[in-house]
């Protein structure tokens, strides 16, 4: 999934207006003359933001209170969609549980792997840029269809994994189509895409002053102690940043589940991610209104988790420039 980042909101002119008391029209005209080119250059983004982001967002909020199947006009049903999701829909519940399971395992494990590799690379290994590129590669490929297809092959019934297991004389199950293991293959796939948090960790590690480590070593602190007392606390803002981004990403995960499960969350809904369920409701069952409600519920869930992260961050994230 990609996220769009708009240009930083700047006005064309930073100067304060020394407004003479003249008419509104003249002031508007002057303001337009001064800022007009700025807005003109912003126009493509503004059109995109209002036309492609804000308008559909508002539209989906409206649709979430309707029954809409694309063929007939939407019919207002009040909060029926929401109450169905919360009180009746068992598939909604299992989709939530699969997604939470995925987020709670994949995000911490991915961050641990990313941090471990970042620290290994931070040692100043020879050819570090090559390693960096190689380790980053899965992140670029990871959410792509091709890799998900590859995953099917690797963990399939006659895949590479089972061929390795067969070498020691055992017989592995078909990992991706067994309800006990299918979700775990997707978690492994997520962990494998540790590249982008790793790069960010690497940058963060470079920011930690070497003197602090040297001073601690001088005082007799071992590597483990230095890691927990120096690296981790000083890295906290970066960890926090990665945690928030990865959590949001994990909640929205779609492609791997869609491809690996064949688009239906199989087997026994064990890979029915929330966004996959949303897609099925919208484009297989044509319940656009219900799907819109699901989308808004997901938005609220992600907001709550992000807010929680921010609220707790003051207890564990230390910013150097706060001077505490």
């Amino acid at each position, binding site marked *: 999934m990609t996220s769009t980042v708009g240009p930083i909101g700047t006005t064309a002119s930073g100067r304060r207006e020394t407004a003479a008391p003249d008419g509104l029209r003249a002031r508007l005209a002057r303001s337009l003359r001064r800022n007009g080119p700025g807005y003109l250059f912003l126009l493509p983004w503004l059109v995109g933001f209002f036309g492609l982001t804000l308008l559909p967002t508002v539209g989906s909020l409206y649709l979430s209170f309707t029954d809409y199947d694309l063929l007939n006009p939407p019919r207002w049903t009040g909060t029926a969609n929401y109450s169905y999701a919360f009180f009746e829909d068992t598939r909604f519940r299992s989709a939530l549980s699969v997604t939470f399971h995925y987020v709670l395992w994949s995000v911490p494990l991915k961050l641990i792997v990313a941090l471990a590799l970042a620290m290994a690379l931070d040692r100043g290994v020879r050819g570090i840029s090559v390693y960096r590129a190689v380790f980053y590669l899965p992140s670029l490929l990871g959410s792509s269809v091709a890799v998900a297809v590859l995953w099917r092959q690797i963990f399939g019934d006659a895949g590479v994994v089972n061929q390795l297991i067969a070498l020691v004389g055992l017989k592995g199950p078909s990992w991706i189509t*067994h309800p006990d293991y299918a979700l775990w293959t997707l978690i492994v796939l997520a962990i494998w895409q540790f590249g982008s948090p790793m790069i960010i960790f690497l940058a963060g590690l470079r920011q930690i002053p070497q003197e602090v480590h040297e001073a601690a070593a001088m005082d007799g602190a071992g590597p483990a102690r230095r890691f927990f007392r120096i690296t981790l606390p000083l890295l906290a803002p970066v960890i926090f940043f990665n945690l928030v981004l990865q959590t949001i990403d994990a909640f929205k995960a779609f492609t791997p589940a869609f491809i690996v499960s064949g688009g239906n969350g199989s*087997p026994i809904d064990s890979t029915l991610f929330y966004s996959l369920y949303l897609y099925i409701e919208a*484009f*297989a069952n044509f319940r656009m209104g219900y799907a819109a409600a699901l989308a808004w519920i997901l938005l609220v869930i992600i907001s709550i988790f992000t807010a929680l992260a921010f609220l707790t961050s003051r207890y564990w994230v230390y910013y150097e420039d706060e001077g505490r």
Partner: protein
Amino acid sequence: MKALSRRDFGRLVAAGAAASALAGGAGPAFAETRLRYIWWGNPDRDKRTNATVDLYHKKHPDISVDRESYAWADYWPKLATQAAGRNLPDVIQMDYRYIFEWARRGQLADLTPMVGKELKLDHFDKNQLESGKIGGKLYGLSMGGNSVALVYNKTQYQKLKIGLPDPLAWTFDDFIKLAKDVQPHLPDGVHFTANKGDNESWLEMFVRQRGKELYTKDGQLGFELDDLVAFWTIMTQMQKDGLTPPPDVQAQDTTGALEKTMLVLGKAITDFTNSNQLVAIQKLMKDQVDLTTLPNQEGNRPGQYMKPSMFISQSASSSQPEEAAKFLNFMVTDVDAGDILQIERGVPADSEVLKHVEPSLTEVEQRMTRYLTLLAKHVGPLPPPPPKGAGEIQQLLYPAYQKVSFGRLSVEDGARDFMQRAKDILKRA
């Protein structure tokens, strides 16, 4: 890089605008009639359909047909989106599952007024024609007939000297006995038959043999808990006896992709299919494959029926209904079109086309028509049209049966769970 001057920039923009204007005008002239035609398919079907449309354009140079084709799973979202945008193509391929829903919602044109004029249906099979009617109005023309079938690996069957019992009267007991006789002679990892307890068509056939239907005329479930329990008991028992692949292997086949079926993967020597897919399956396999009927139950009541494999329909919003109808007529009754389309979409409903096509059929295609000829002696009536929500219930069968086959629920509990959920879906649809 050299910075662009203002004048260079102006030139560039002008050149770009000119180029796009040229590109826009380069298409066929505006004077002619343009139709839009949309279908779902596979590479083979696309090739045949495109060639047929080209032929139509050659015969009628003033009419050109724009084409869109999608895979089955992408087709319905695309079509629904176009309907929502009031932008439906003039000519639409339809499926038996959806045609009633689309007709009820006023998206499809009633073809009745065109019959005898643009539509010349004198040689069209009466049953196939009826299958496109709702409330006496004609909403689609069958593009071919097919039926469900057992597909088996003939090469392996011959090697093992397996003789099939009378195809019009054999029973599930015969089927299971055959499986038990054959299984010990099969190599490790190969099973007698795929386990399709999650397949809607298998289930439909099974309940029809018991005198029921999947859905009643008023859109309710047409079978009882006992029927489903009986079906799943047979299937899970065969799995336990090793006559079918284990559930995690079988679970690879949940997407409808032929290359993931147990037969094609070499995990089973018998599988379940639609008769018109024989040609495609044979293309994927070295061993020879052939079709036979499904086993029967007590009373030998026919469970199978001749199904219109797909329809060709016209959108209600078409601005040129007569031209669209002429094209429809060409696709289903023209012998030259039949020459190209052959029986890829099932056996043509127009007897003249069928007569014309038959001699040129390949050996594989003849196996398919032979099967349908044999089956024609043992088919029941077309079931009532499936209600809204039927597609969702079909999908529900996969996880519901998997709960049973993976041993998470007993057959009774799993079946009860499925019946309840299916009823909920129908209530909500």
